[in-house]
């Protein structure tokens, strides 16, 4: 390390005790080095007190406005368990409705006498349900289907995103 490097190190306070003594001896014997050290200290002091530049007031807003859109849901809108349950229940309901209609029209019972009795009971139960409740039931099914489609779309978007 040359003397100038040593002077910078000294001004920064990074010298070991041995180097410190060496610098102090050199500067006490040499007026030129003493001047060098004085200037180095001034430059050092100025550089360490440098101020940050500031961007315009709208900087943060502009950055936020340009951020790419992200997926909004980190978790699926409908949990897999409920999805499975819904589709099974829907399939069962459709089968029940189909066969109850068939038995109502006096078509030959395709699943035997026992099944025919069950389906007849379902048919009676459905007839007993007020129309308003059935409308709500259809509405719930529709909502569920919309949510499922939305969930799928968001999931596809997520995979197309940067992450």
């Amino acid at each position, binding site marked *: 390390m040359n003397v100038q490097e040593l002077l910078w190190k000294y001004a920064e306070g990074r010298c070991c005790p041995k180097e410190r003594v060496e610098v102090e001896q050199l500067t006490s014997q040499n007026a030129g080095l003493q001047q060098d050290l004085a200037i180095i200290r001034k*430059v050092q002091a100025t550089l*360490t007190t440098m101020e940050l530049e500031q*961007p*315009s007031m709208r900087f*943060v807003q502009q950055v936020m406005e340009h*951020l*790419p859109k992200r997926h*909004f849901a980190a978790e699926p809108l409908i949990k897999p368990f409920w999805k499975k349950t819904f589709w099974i229940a829907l399939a069962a309901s459709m089968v029940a409705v189909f066969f109850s209609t068939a038995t109502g029209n006096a078509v030959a019972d395709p699943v035997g006498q026992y099944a025919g009795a069950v389906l007849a009971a379902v048919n009676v139960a459905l007839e007993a349900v007020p129309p308003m409740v059935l409308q709500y039931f259809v509405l719930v099914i529709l909502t569920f289907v919309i949510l499922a489609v939305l969930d799928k779309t968001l999931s596809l978007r997520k995979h197309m995103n940067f992450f």
Partner: protein
Amino acid sequence: MDNDLHLVKETLKGNQVSFRVLVERYRDYVFTISFKVLNNREESEEAAQDAFLKAYRGLARFEQRSKFATWLYQIAWRTAIDRLRARPPKAMSVDEGSIALQLPDAADSPAQQLHRKTIRAFTHQALSCLKPEDAALLTLYYLNEQSVKEITVITGQTESNVKVRLFRLRDAMKNQLMRMLKSEVKEIANG
């Protein structure tokens, strides 16, 4: 900063408010790095914005091998350097065998000369006359007290290269100041 990591995780979950906090925290540093490299406010602002957008897009790739700030400054540095390289060069670098300082002649008005006759003003003037990459290197070293190791991560230069450049730049500044302040040097040395 641990808090930075928490904000990064929240941003990755889709919380843009957390990213806003990071932008507010580091905007001045990122802008200063860009400004030191580009020396033009408008262009620096665009470069700084660009750096934040790149950071946002690449947040999932932040592997926490360095501090978030170091990673962000690295992006800011590269973005600014890329913009700078798209421009024709102006000043010379210390690497080109000559000192990059080109201080203006003392042909200003007496009032301006009086103002410039302070070490601080001269140092700032000297810094602004450096090649932009060199000025940014000094800024990184002093502004946020980045260690030489962190500067190697940010700039992609080797540790020895950074050390040598820093020494040569500072020494060039010192020599230039000594030439300019011939009469005052003795007074400064005497305190």
